[in-house]
């Protein structure tokens, strides 16, 4: 187990270093950085002065080392728009995104897991078919369209919920539902197939044969065994919530990390883009690491293979 943990930690550290390099590569090698970093209406005579001032005339390797040294100390430079530390802006927006992702995960657990279990237990009944249709639709419906539909129904027609913003519980409802929809559909399908796998096992037959009620068979014997694949796969999928947040936050003007990233891209505020994308990638990598480690802890076979 120890060797597995150490190997996995080292691999994650390498991925973080390479991801930071990839962000540098994307932004700096994509063309003349001055044109990316400066507003479109810059005067031609100022370009050369700024190029010199920002160090873009140095060899790429020197720039890379300078960037990596800064990045590893959490310094991605100053936001061109807000004249403030770029990473500080990112961290400021983090709680809002965590709140949104957390409530989306909570919604998923409350809706998707019971739905998956019920459709598996009542296989090939009307409930199963309706549940399957719901999950297939949930997976195919684009988040931003679902968001517009919800705004139309609940904000424009019924006037129950505000169209966007943050601060009240009512404003949290629609964005977290949109963020949860795709994820919940995946988790429900996953739960269904994991539960079906376990229901086919011999020990379930034994449990039934010894006269246990169906309720106990499902909660005690099935769910405990199907929990491992559900938790690990849901954990791996949860990282995609960070991508989904980009969409959900923009639709509902939710002041989180995703919206900050989109605004920074639109404003060509590249220090903030680099800080936000790097930060997201690191969080994502750490989540994958946590899932892998818990997997190794739950399932001894993984340790041996590693």
């Amino acid at each position, binding site marked *: 187990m120890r060797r597995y943990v150490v190997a996995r930690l080292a691999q994650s550290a*390498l991925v973080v270093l390479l991801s930071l390099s990839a962000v540098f590569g*994307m932004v700096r090698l*994509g063309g003349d950085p001055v044109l990316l970093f400066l507003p479109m209406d810059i005067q031609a005579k100022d370009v050369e002065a700024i190029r010199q001032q920002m160090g873009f005339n140095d060899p790429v390797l020197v720039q890379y080392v300078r960037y990596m040294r800064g990045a590893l100390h959490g310094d991605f430079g100053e936001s061109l728009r807000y004249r403030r530390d770029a990473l500080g802006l990112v961290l400021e927006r983090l709680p809002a995104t965590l709140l949104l992702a957390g409530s989306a995960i909570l919604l998923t657990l409350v809706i998707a897991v019971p739905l998956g279990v019920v459709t598996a237990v009542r296989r090939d009944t009307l409930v199963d078919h309706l549940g399957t249709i719901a999950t*297939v*639709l949930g997976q195919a419906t684009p988040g931003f*369209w679902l968001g*517009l539909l919800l705004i*139309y129904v609940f904000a424009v027609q019924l006037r129950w919920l505000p169209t966007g913003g943050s601060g009240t519980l009512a404003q949290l409802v629609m964005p977290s539902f949109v963020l949860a929809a795709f994820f919940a559909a995946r988790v429900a399908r996953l739960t269904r197939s994991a539960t079906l796998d376990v229901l086919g096992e011999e020990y379930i037959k034994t449990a039934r044969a010894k006269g246990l009620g169906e309720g106990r068979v499902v909660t005690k014997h099935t769910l405990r065994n199907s929990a491992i694949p559900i938790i690990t796969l849901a954990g791996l999928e949860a990282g995609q919530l960070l991508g989904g947040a980009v969409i959900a936050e923009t639709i509902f003007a939710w002041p989180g990390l995703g919206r900050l990233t989109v605004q920074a*891209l*639109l404003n060509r505020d590249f220090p903030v883009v680099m800080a936000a994308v790097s930060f997201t990638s690191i969080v994502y990598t750490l989540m994958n690491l946590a899932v892998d480690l818990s997997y190794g802890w739950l399932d001894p076979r993984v340790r041996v293979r590693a």
Partner: protein
Amino acid sequence: MKKPLGLALTLLAALAALAAPWLSPHDPLQADFAAFLKPPGTDAHPLGTDQLGRDLLARVLYGARLALFIGVCTVVVTAVVGGLLGLVAGWVEGWPSALLMRIADVQLSFPFILLALTINAIVGLGLRNIILSLSAAGWVVYARVVRAEVLAVKQRDFVQAAAALGVGSGRLLFRHVLPNVAPSIIVVASLQFSQFIVAEAAISYLGFGVQPPTPAWGSMLSESRDYLFVAWWLGAFPGGALALTALGVNLLGDWLRDTFDPKLRV
């Protein structure tokens, strides 16, 4: 149920895309300020008109053309590039394989949509660049799947036997290994296809990617937001078309996976 519904929806989208010039009652770019924001069912405008009086049916049909064109191009580019890299890495092993896996790790440390969006904002807007961005963010799935499959297939007896008979490396790889890996490539491609068209729409929705006035479903949905209080049809039809297309291709992909490769996870 997956097969008929998936096939029907996919064929419908393909038909709309191919026959858009003949099915459209109007030019999708033709503005008509005398007839703006007309509701569906208005004379000569079955789905109504948008804020500039452009025919919505024409725009939705041409939107299908654009979405499927982008989807097909991206799937072809990613399948060829990712497939070839995976094929070589699985065959040669050693450092090319290790290098490819590290690149894959790095790429997979970014959420797909964020990566495609950022690349698109850097390389620039427009049709060619959106295909480029989606391909750059999406090829890695093929590379991983194909590499893993090649590693398994090359141990099989028929490959070993062919090698023992003195068949050359290139012929072995393309005539004996590739055909056995092809079903996985097709399944991955069909599952990726809907992800690509939804991602393209999302990126255009956010203001990158394909720019107005080109009729793309994503940018149409983005414009519809300003008219949500007065014209529901502006969002309902492009969004419905996108969702049905994604649903159809998804179902088809699921069916292909169930048929060819039930254990495959993407």
